[in-house]
Structures are given as structure tokens and as C-alpha cells.
């Protein structure tokens, strides 16, 4: 289990992580979701003892990472697939890692085989594609057969087949009772690969729960086509509904359910031709959740 305890991290004037507090439990895949620059990588680096927290702490099964004896046997991590000396072969890289944690040498061939890079294991890592480096990183994480695994944006650089493979692989790891903590800035990715999701924005905790929980809390909209759109719009406004869009094809109304919109139309004597509840898409839910905390917003209009 990973426990994050009132964790705060500042880099000079930047507040990268702001009083985060959560737990990552074994047996499920936990997604760590947030827009770019929200502090996901920083949190993971602190869990691994690479960066020092400004206050608070992160513990692994109750212990600080730096105090683990052979840490690779308890925690496997893949933060940055390219963080390998480019002049060394994959096999030698893994052999050195295995030696440092008293892991037997035969395990190196096992993990190379498992991630499917045995045939290039004696080539220099500097020549690897991002996808191959990613697989090598996963091999390194698995080397010590750890009960806890951390992956920072693991699907980056993988082809569709690789993505499918890694999703199933996370499920398998979780079903073996391991703690699997995976970050992403894509809700759609989390929706298919994670059971539980922790959402952060600008270093702050926003919400957590299953995908279903998160989509339920997000408000959908209602599309309605009726005999008098202007009259309906005023009536909706009276009932605290919000008209997002209005044109000849109909109205898109927020903050009201389709039942409520139908009832309002009936009350003011408007004929409804079409009434469609629209569930928010996953990306909309995510944007809705993190709307106030997006660090790098793009401005679509205007000249550059």
C-alpha cells in the first residue's frame, strides 16, 4: 500500500504538490489523473525518494522508500523510459539492477522474455525506439517481483497492440493482489485501464472514485427541439436552467434533467418534437472537474 500524507512540494516559487492526502490500495488498478503540470510525476518522484517533500510524507507499507532494504523487491517503478545509459545494453542494464538488489541473474532473462525484447537485449539502449525503451522500463520494474508498481504515463510511445498488452498486464498484476498505480493525463485511458481514479489539478486533490462515480457526478445536458424555442428558452431560464446553445435545430440545456425540461415545455404549452438527454463524455467530465485548475490552457481564438 502507498500512503500519501499531507504531501507538499515546492520548487522555488512553484507549488507543484499542494497538501495531497490519499492511499493507493492493493488488488486494483488505481489511476492517477490530472492535466499537464498538475504534479503527478512530482508525487511519484517523492514516493520513490528521488525528490524531498517540502512537508508531509509518502510511505510504502508504512516505511519511507529510502529505508527499504532491497527496494526493487517491494516497489517497481517506471518513471521515464529513457532514463537509461544509452551506451549500455538492455541485458547489462538489467544485470546491474538485479545485482544491486540481490536478485538472481536468471530473473533478467525471464523479464526480458516477458516484455518481448530478448532478441534485442544485447543491443545498446540508445538505439531503442520509445516503445522498446518503455518495455525495458517495465522489465526493470518487474525484476524484483514487487508487490507495488508505479507507472508514469506508461502508454506513451506504445503502439495499439502494446497499449492493449499493457492494459491487460495491469489487470493481471492487480488480480494477483498487487498495488498498481498508473498516471495519465487522459481520462479515456483511465476509463479503460483503471478501477479507481484519483484526480488532481494544480497539485491539489480534486476527487476520487470509480469511473462510474465520476461520470455520475458530472452534469449532462439535454437536447430539445420544440415548436417555440424562444419561449422555451425563457421558461427554462425561470427554472434555473442554462441554455448552452440555441438555433433552428433546437436548444442545448444544462443544469436540468430531460424530465424537467419536458415538464416545463408541457407547462407553458409548447410541443416537444425531440428530447434527448446527453451524458457528458469522459473528457468533458474530466475537463469539468479540472476546469479551475488547468495550468497550461490553450487559447483557441485570436492570433499568435
Amino acid at each position, binding site marked *: 500500500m502507498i500512503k500519501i500524507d499531507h504531501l507538499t512540494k515546492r520548487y522555488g516559487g512553484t507549488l507543484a504538490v499542494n497538501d495531497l492526502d490519499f492511499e493507493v490500495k492493493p488488488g486494483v488498478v488505481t489511476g492517477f489523473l490530472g492535466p499537464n503540470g498538475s504534479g503527478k510525476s512530482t508525487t511519484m*518522484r517523492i514516493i520513490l525518494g*528521488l525528490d524531498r517533500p517540502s512537508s508531509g510524507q509518502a510511505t510504502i507499507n508504512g516505511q519511507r522508500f*529510502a529505508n527499504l532494504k532491497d527496494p526493487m523487491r517491494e516497489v517497481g517503478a517506471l518513471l521515464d523510459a529513457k532514463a537509461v545509459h544509452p551506451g549500455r545494453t538492455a541485458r547489462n542494464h538489467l544485470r*546491474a539492477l538485479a545485482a544491486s538488489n540481490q536478485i538472481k541473474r536468471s530473473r533478467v532473462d525471464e523479464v526480458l522474455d516477458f516484455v518481448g525484447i530478448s532478441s534485442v537485449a544485447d543491443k545498446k539502449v540508445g538505439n531503442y525506439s520509445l516503445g522498446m525503451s518503455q518495455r525495458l522500463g517495465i522489465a526493470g520494474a518487474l525484476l524484483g517481483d514487487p508487490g507495488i508498481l508505479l507507472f508514469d504515463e506508461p502508454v506513451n510511445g506504445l503502439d495499439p497492440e502494446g497499449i492493449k498488452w499493457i492494459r491487460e498486464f495491469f489487470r493481471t498484476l492487480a488480480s494477483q493482489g498487487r498495488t498498481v498505480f498508473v498516471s495519465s493525463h487522459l481520462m479515456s485511458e483511465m476509463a479503460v485501464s483503471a478501477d479507481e481514479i484519483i484526480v488532481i489539478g494544480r497539485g491539489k486533490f480534486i476527487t476520487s472514485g470509480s469511473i462510474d462515480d465520476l461520470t455520475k457526478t458530472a452534469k449532462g445536458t439535454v437536447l430539445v427541439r420544440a415548436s417555440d424555442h424562444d419561449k422555451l428558452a425563457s421558461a427554462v431560464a425561470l427554472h434555473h436552467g442554462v441554455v448552452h446553445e440555441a438555433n433552428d435545430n433546437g436548444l442545448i440545456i444544462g443544469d436540468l434533467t430531460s424530465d424537467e425540461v419536458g415538464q416545463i415545455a408541457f407547462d407553458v404549452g409548447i410541443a416537444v418534437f425531440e428530447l434527448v438527454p446527453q451524458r457528458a463524455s469522459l473528457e468533458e467530465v474530466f475537463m469539468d472537474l479540472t476546469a479551475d485548475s488547468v495550468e497550461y490552457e490553450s487559447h483557441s481564438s485570436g492570433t499568435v
Partner: protein
Amino acid sequence: MVNESTLLASTKAEWIKFRTVRSSMMGVILTFVLIIGLGVLVSSLERSHWSQVSNLRQATFDPVSSSLVGILFGQLAVGVIGTLFITSEYSSGSIRTTLTAVPNRLRLIASKLFVLFATLLVVGEVVCVAAFLIGQRIYFGVVPTASLDNGAVLRSVLLAGVYLALLGILGFSLGLIFRQSGACISLFVTLLLVVPIIGFFFPQSWQNDFQRFEPSTLGQSMFSPSAPSNSFGAWSATIILTAFVGVVLLIALALFERRDAGAVT
């Protein structure tokens, strides 16, 4: 604090890492080529010009340090080996992988130092003994020679190897402080080759006080059978250089303990 079995394990890992990159191996080869090659060149010139050399120079000629003259450049090669052993971890980002495998930073550095010092000591002793023997072989019959049977000569040749190993540690410590190969290598070259030249422009009295503390002068004292004028004796020089390297290493360690290692610099 530092557990014995894990210290052995991380030292094994660092040994694998050291010998599986080309730069270390190239550095070792370069050390051999520079020290032996320059030694052969200078000794041969010394022999062929011996009859034209002044009597005073003939009288003060030291067959030991002249056969080890290649150290002037060989010391740069070991410095680069030491520097790259740590800065390559920063340039590639592999320091993060290394630290997730060995999070105890003191233990990690102890392992790296052990591998580096042991390797460079073996390399240094082998190359210096070889350069010395080859030099004497070239001098034989024309130029006066020295023998390892003489205690002071043996001490000089062995301390020359120690000097190289210490400079490797100096390069490593600078690398740990600056985390950037280029800057460290320039600084290292400045310290060993440029500072002595600058010192040359200072007033004589100042030179006398200052020059003998320069790493290259300390080295000269270490591998000369009798101390050159205005410099320390061999053992004092060894102690001073060790202390100097030790201080730089301690600064490096203190910084390494404190700094975040995760961020890409």
C-alpha cells in the same frame, strides 16, 4: 545505516555499470597510451640527446620522474573517467533508475567510489610500473637508470599510481557537484594545467608559498625520489592531496544528500 550485504550488492552493480560502458574502457586505454606513449617518446629523446645535455642537467637528472612524464596528460584521462562515471548518470537521466534501486545515497556513493578507486589504483600502478620499466630499458647504457630495488624509487613509482587514483576521485567529486560533464572537465583541466601557468606570473615569493599546494606540484613530489626544491616531501604531499580531494568529496556528498535527484536538469 549502511548494511554490509547491501553495500556489497550495490558495489557489484556499480562494477557491472562501470565496465559495460565504452567511455570507461576508452579512458583506461587512453591512460595507458598517454602515459606509456609519452614516456617512451621522452625517454628516447633524452637518450638520443644525452651527449648534448649540460653537465648541470645531467647531474640533476631524475630517471624516475622523467620516465613518468606522461602522467601530465594521463592525469586528465583518469579525471575524465571519474567525472563521466557520475555525470553520465545525470546526462542520461539514469541517476533516477540508480537511486530507485539504491535509495541510500551514502551507500550508492560508497559503492561508486570503491569501484572507481580500486580500478584506477590497479590501472595506475600497472601503467606507472610499466612506464618506469620501459623508460629504464630505453635509458640503459647511456642515461643513468634507477631500480625498484631502491626504496625511494619504489615509493615514487607506487605513489604515482596512487596519485592517478586520487585524481580520478577528484574528477568524480567535481562531477557530483556540477552534474555536467563539460563544465567539470574544463575545471579539472584548469586546476591541473592552467593554474600552474597562472602561478608562474605571480611574484617569486608568492609562487614559493602557493605552487607547492597545487595538485600537479603535489603529484610531482609524490613521484620524485627526492623532493624537488620548494615542495613537500612525498608522504606530506600524499597526505595534503588526499585531504584536498577529501574536502571536495565531502562537499559533493553534502550536496548530493540534500538535492532532489529526480528532476531533469
